[in-house]
């Protein structure tokens, strides 16, 4: 059950054009090079992993200081607040620059994932893990979650990127690009409520 949730969230992040597959496609199209597309994807996944792992580290460090219930309530409040902010604020991630080196691309992905609260979305899973409250176990278990999540994100992004690059073309964006940011905000709020209910 938990594993399924982690993988599904990874797929949800992977499918979002803003999380990087579209950037990989654009880099490939710009240089007419599928190699560049394929090179970009793992780098983007790495940035995503770093963003998620950061949340895992914070949760496990906090978990060693407070009770599991306090951790879950705190996480729930953060999630609901962050989700509502995303839903109501009109600001969006800003970045200028198309010509990035691979390390810069990883940094871009890290920032993009962090601003969107990609790691936060895993809070319900992280706060419910049996080892929560036990620092060492929580950290290793959490990192496993981050790894599995990112792998799912990477595979989904890779499949979508290659299919769009090779077959569909970017014109598909006009029809198929649903406002995932709004769904994302709902998902954050939902995850927060779920966490709070679990804590009660």
């Amino acid at each position, binding site marked *: 059950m938990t594993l399924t949730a982690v993988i599904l969230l990874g797929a949800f992040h992977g499918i979002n*054009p*803003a999380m990087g597959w*579209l*950037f990989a*496609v*654009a880099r490939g*199209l*710009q240089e*007419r090079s599928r190699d560049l597309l394929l090179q970009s994807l793992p780098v983007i996944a790495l940035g995503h992993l770093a963003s998620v792992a950061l949340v895992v580290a914070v949760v496990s460090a906090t978990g060693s200081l407070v009770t599991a219930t306090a951790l879950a309530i705190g996480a729930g409040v953060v999630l609901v607040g962050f989700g509502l902010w995303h839903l109501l604020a*009109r*600001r*969006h*991630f*800003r*970045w*200028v*620059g*198309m*010509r*990035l080196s691979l390390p810069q691309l990883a940094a*871009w992905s890290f920032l993009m994932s962090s601003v969107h609260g990609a790691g936060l979305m895993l809070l319900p899973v992280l706060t419910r893990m049996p080892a929560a409250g036990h620092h060492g176990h929580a950290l290793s278990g959490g990192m496993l979650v981050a790894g599995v999540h990112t792998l799912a994100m990477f595979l989904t992004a890779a499949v979508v990127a290659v299919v769009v690059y090779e077959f569909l073309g*970017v*014109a598909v*964006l*006009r*029809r198929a*690009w*649903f*406002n995932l*940011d*709004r769904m994302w905000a709902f998902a954050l709020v939902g995850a927060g409520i779920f966490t709070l209910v679990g804590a009660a």
Partner: protein
Amino acid sequence: MTLWKPDPTFYPSPRDAAEAPPEKLAYVAAFDRSARRPDALAVLDTDPGSPSYGTVVGWTDLPYTGDELHHFGWNACSSALCPYAPHPHVERRYLIVPGLRSSRIYVYDTKDRVSPELVKVIEAEELGKRAGYSRPHTVHCGPEGLYVSALGGYGDDGPGGIAILDHNSFEVLGRWEVDRGPQYLAYDFWWHINHDVLVTSEWGTPSMVENGVVGELLLGRKYGHKIHFWDLRKRKHIQEVDLGDQHQMTLELRPAHDPTKTYGFVGVVTNVEDLSASVWVWHKDGSRWTAEKVITIPAEPASPDDLPDVLKPFGAVPPLVTDIDLSVDDQRLYVSCWGTGELKQYDVSDPFKPVEIGSVRLGGIVRREAHPAAPDERLAGGPQMVEVSRDGRRVYVTNSLYGAWDDQFYPDGVGAWMAKVDAESFTLDERFFPHGDDFRGLRPHQTRLQGGDASSDSYCYP
């Protein structure tokens, strides 16, 4: 509120944009030279199937007088699809309309209405205090928000430059340039968005232009004759390219829409040695930018009796290339010769070897060529601002250049008209000729087509 699906007027690539449906409305900035009545946004019906085709169907007066509307742009465009910071669920809805003389910037809502409705006024003071600029001109929607070029400094004549506006709140965020290098004069700008390069051109400072073209400055070669290249990310000046100081006034910049390309066209108003006008192509040569002249349009000899005072000593009509426009597919370049009264069409499939394939005559300082819809009416002014539909099939022109300059070159009155040319046959549409009283005494300047046009959008995908 954001949309659930991308705004339908956003296109990932220029190829996709060329498939866009025909525009039904055109927005035209119109200004009162006397500054006694408010300037206005006129809305033209461009749907040939409509009973009101070719007429003014909407009109919005500005709240003040003396703005001198000139150029304007959209709050959002296809660059919202760019992959590094996509936000495709915003709407192309607001027109950002600068007053070139008043330095105010207006925001007009166009959604679900014909006549735009005012939603915000940015006062000259806000632009000046936050960005250090005045006389706002070109507007482009881009990665960091709205970019607005400005001819003058705040309280000073220069330097001119670019201000950044927040594209949600429309507040002035500040000056764009971090390091402007040797750049002082400003006018137009655009970019090679996928190469992180911004390009700017040069006209003159407010004191050099606001009271008409100054003969001593022109013959002293003091107007702009350079283009500048900038790092779009770092906001730094990279390189200037000097076209030679005989080439006075490098105005409109039209980079290739294909984001993999690194070339573009810039028009030069006049060469002081022979009054010819020219179009140059800039391109990247290794790591350096360079430019070469690819089109020269000679002056036409004329009797001094037929010429306004400003031209009498020369005995010729300069073409005065004041606007150019590149079709979205980068295949056709349109060149306005406001002095001689001609719109030229070039095949630029090879940008280094343009081939003239069409010409339409209208107005002109000496010719005064009539429009077929009103064959008895000698027309003043000439094709000036030119705009091309996204599919490249229709070309719109208006006839006013800039208040004080209109009066010098057309001292008996520049009139007011707009015309439409079919790009394929390159002939004037006899059903589309709003003119004279249709513009209620105001002079029409830039046209923006509903949903976007050839000079409004940048694309991040080839």
